[in-house]
């Protein structure tokens, strides 16, 4: 069986904007690379930085968080809290030696299928250019 060597990007998408945006991209048949696996969350504010670290720890080559544009949050403020946490996280990951391009956050609305497709394309490209994420030794 051929094991895929394609990089894997874990996407945490808010249900109301970005997940719907990714649906729009699908409905519009906007062809994208196969690297992203989407995990649906209610809001970008639900994304615990620990989830992101867990993904990297388990060998993800990239992590992508996407939510509603600031001021458009379905829950009004969730993405503002997310923005703070993830700003701090972004710098922290970089500090720990995880290349900055491996972790990105984007604001994609339900109607922005085109933008979502572009986010996927460009991030996949950047992560591919970096090569596989360096993995720390584990039992697995």
């Amino acid at each position: 069986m051929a094991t895929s060597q394609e990089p894997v990007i874990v996407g945490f998408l808010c249900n109301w904007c970005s997940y719907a945006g990714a649906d729009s991209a699908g409905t519009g048949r906007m062809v994208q690379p196969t690297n992203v696996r989407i995990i649906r969350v209610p809001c970008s504010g639900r994304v615990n930085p620990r989830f992101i670290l867990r993904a990297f720890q388990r060998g993800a080559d990239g992590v992508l968080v996407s939510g509603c544009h600031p001021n458009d949050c379905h829950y009004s403020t969730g993405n503002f809290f997310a923005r703070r946490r993830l700003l701090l996280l972004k710098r922290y990951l970089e500090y720990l030696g995880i290349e900055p391009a491996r972790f990105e956050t984007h604001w994609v609305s339900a109607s922005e299928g085109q933008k979502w497709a572009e986010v996927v394309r460009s991030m996949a490209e950047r992560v591919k250019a970096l090569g596989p994420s360096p993995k720390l030794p584990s039992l697995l």
Partner: protein
Amino acid sequence: MPKSLALDPKKMKEAEAALRTQAAKLLSEGTVTVFLGHEEGWDGLPVPFFATTPEEAKRLVWNPLVAFNLAKYLLDRLTGEEKVGIVVNGCGSLALDRLLKDRRFPRERLFVVGIPCTGLLDPDKVLALPDEARQAALEGGKAEPGLFLKRCGWCDAPNPVVADVVLGEKVPEEAGPQQYPRVEEIEKMSPAERAAHFKTLYEKCIRCFACRNVCPACSCRECSLDQWEPLWLGKATVPSEQLMYHFIRAFDVAGRCIRCGECERVCSVGVPLMELNDKLMKDITELFGVQRPHVPADVEPLGQWTEGDADLEAAH
């Protein structure tokens, strides 16, 4: 190093006498049923000590080696009605305030004796000195800057911020932006160098949890790192799990760390934990404009936001 760090053993001796009197009074009058302080331990170093009688209060010590923050012991007394006495210096009071802001102990059950601080010495370093030099440091106040606790080097809160009574005079405070030279050094490394640097850190750690257990910002009833469902942290002490441990520990105290450095001090294998905590504090200042991120605030920096926070999307 702040200028106020002129070790004054004589003042401390006076404070010690006043502390014993104060604690004995509180205990004899029944204001408190226990008083949290230090006594002289087996090898001459102070160890945490909990006096319950005026007699025992005489054993309390206050000297340049009382490095241990006592606030965390309050958690052992959460269930109960009795009032607890505690002695704090500047950083000790920050630890206490941390617990108060985290609603982990009721203020009304506390009687806080504050002592302004002229600096503390690193017990391990002092213990390693030849007898004469040790004496000179402890009794003569002649201590090289390197002998002080690391945290004294960046201290901007030598006076207790929480106290019911203060023994001794206020120490002049020097406010200024916190410096993070070691973080700046690491920031200059390449990503690969940084990854390698922190890998050595993960490999060293034996995951004894002393850093977590001593930390005044880590006060959960049951640490999520000890929980099985979900298993936030795997039990294997392999570098990938150590990364997770150190990430979660540091990120959970981000914005709440008081920069006491106790985590690093109690680490038996020398993991430089403040390299992680300091980075987050530095960034909280840079990103969110919190000028003294180590001072407990009414709303934690990550529990709020402003419209003006940096555009995360553009940060890529």
